């Protein structure tokens, strides 16, 4: 290994050598591209109702069949992927921002504020997520935006713990002490000196968090509390699949497969990044 290479380049190098991580990356990219260019990939309009072709199994003109209103399942899945990914990214964004903010304060200042924040983490972790999500959804009414907010508000604990641990170990290091000796403000030290050096564990948790958020969204929509029909998301498609399970297996099988493949991609990629960042794995 060339010593002059940057940390990022080294990490990328190790990531590319990890076959599972590469597979994960390809899956993530594939789903991402298909979702962004949904109008190009979807063979039909996802909301065009065709009552002459209701609940038809997979065939040449409808590769994944049609639903109970004759809509093309493949097209609905492609558009639904867009919604599911959006929810995943925004929810993880919210969770990560909250987590970084609270974790940084907690780790940097310590003392009573640290205890207060860490006890809040304990409280949040003791309550089943699904309960909080259900209760909050009942207040806010189910909609795409609210789902993103709710998932974000109930999954900031892991990033907060990770950032706190990074801050505790970094704040005693020479470069931080030097910055504070030179009169840098707390805000500047936190944002410019400590945070950039403590972000790598967050990268792993955010990558895997996207998979987790997509799973949670699908579970909520499946229960009828997330994305509402007729808007397609993978979870809401599965929900209508459940109602027709005895007559139309394809309505359940394919959207679930899409969730599995996408979440698998993020999990493989996240685990790969974790290994690539871990110096013990580099021999």
């Amino acid at each position: 290994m060339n010593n002059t290479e940057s940390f990022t380049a080294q990490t990328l190098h190790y990531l590319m050598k990890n076959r599972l991580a590469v597979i994960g990356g390809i899956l993530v990219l594939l789903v991402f591209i298909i979702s962004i260019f949904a109008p190009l990939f979807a063979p039909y309009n996802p909301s065009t109702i065709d009552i002459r072709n209701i609940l038809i199994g997979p065939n040449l003109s409808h590769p994944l069949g049609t639903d109970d209103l004759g809509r093309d399942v493949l097209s609905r899945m492609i558009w639904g992927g867009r919604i599911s990914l959006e929810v995943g990214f925004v929810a993880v964004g919210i969770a990560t921002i909250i987590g970084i903010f609270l974790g940084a304060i907690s780790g940097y200042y310590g003392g009573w504020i640290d205890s207060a924040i860490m006890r809040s983490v304990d409280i949040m972790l003791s309550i089943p997520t699904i309960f909080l999500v259900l209760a909050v959804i009942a207040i806010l009414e189910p909609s795409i935006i609210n789902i993103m907010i709710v998932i974000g508000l109930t999954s900031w604990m892991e990033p907060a713990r990770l950032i706190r641990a990074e801050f505790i170990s970094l704040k005693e290091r020479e470069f931080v002490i030097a910055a504070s000796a030179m009169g840098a403000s707390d805000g500047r030290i936190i944002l410019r000196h400590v945070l950039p050096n403590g972000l790598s564990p967050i990268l792993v948790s955010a990558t895997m968090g996207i998979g987790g958020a997509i799973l949670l969204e699908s579970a909520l929509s499946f229960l009828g509390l997330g994305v509402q029909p007729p808007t397609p998301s993978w979870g809401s498609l599965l929900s209508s699949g459940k109602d027709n399970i005895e007559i139309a297996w394809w309505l359940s099988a394919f959207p679930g497969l899409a969730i599995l493949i996408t979440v698998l991609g993020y999990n493989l990629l996240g685990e790969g990044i974790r290994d690539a960042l871990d110096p013990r794995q580099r021999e």
Partner: protein
Amino acid sequence: MLTYIIKRALLMVPILLGITVLSFGVMRLAPGGPAEAQMDFSAKASAEARERLRKLYGADQPFYKQYATWLNKFVTLDFGVAFADGRKVKDKILERLPITLTINLLSLGLVLLIAIPIGILSATRQYSLLDRFTTMFVFIGFSTPSFWLALLLIYLFGVQWGILPISGIQSLDSTEFSAWGKLTDKAHHLVLPVFVSAFGGLAGFSRYVRNNMLEVMRQDYIRTARAKGLSENVVIYQHALRNALMPVITILGLSLPGIIGGSAIMEQVFGIPGMGQLMFQSVMSRDYNLAMGILVPAAFLTMLGNFLADIGYAFTDPRVRLH
């Protein structure tokens, strides 16, 4: 050690209070409440009757008073009555608990039975074909939506092959069965729910056992055991396994909230009248007493699990006690 235990136990009090305040607050912020919960059964109730019900359940009081009243009763283990039917929360829970416990204990047994050997084998044969295969399985297990798996199995075993029932916990005519018939009937109904609940845990547990095993195998005392000529079996199954399984037990405590959450979805799919379904219904219909009666004991058990795990760590690792 004793001071550590006391300190750690005292810490549980504010956390428990926080849990009750947060969940009570979230429940009360939402529109709807006792009056609305009962109105489902008597849609034509007058505004006056509504007001009377709100008074009866204290919903007209300010938040902190409601909370204080609730807490006062709760600490004496008086969970109150469910708004929907006026029955005691305790009775409703005790009636639902056995089925959820049965499913989760059976699936936990299944998980441990399969995950421990798999974890050991893939750790002792790291990077072997078996290890690669289980690693892939673990990732797929983590990524599979459990309700989707449930749907697929319902379709295959229930609809396509017709060999397993797809919903409920007993056949409609099961009252006419003999005792043995009832038991097999119930077992039949539980096969899919138990398998689906076990599936997700299987991946996590086997990974966990594997990683712990790998960690332990790197320790000096394992090298010492080998160096003094002990057979590989003794080294692995007596020296390594014991230390590797210790933290696995603590994970059981931590997985409790997940079990309750998982039961809510799983019981919904299979139409099982258990705790998960009861929690789901109570939250959705704003039945505070019922929801809190399920949630707070569950959160308390989770905390207790955490507590015992920390005490366990402190016993084995003196460094923990100092912090």
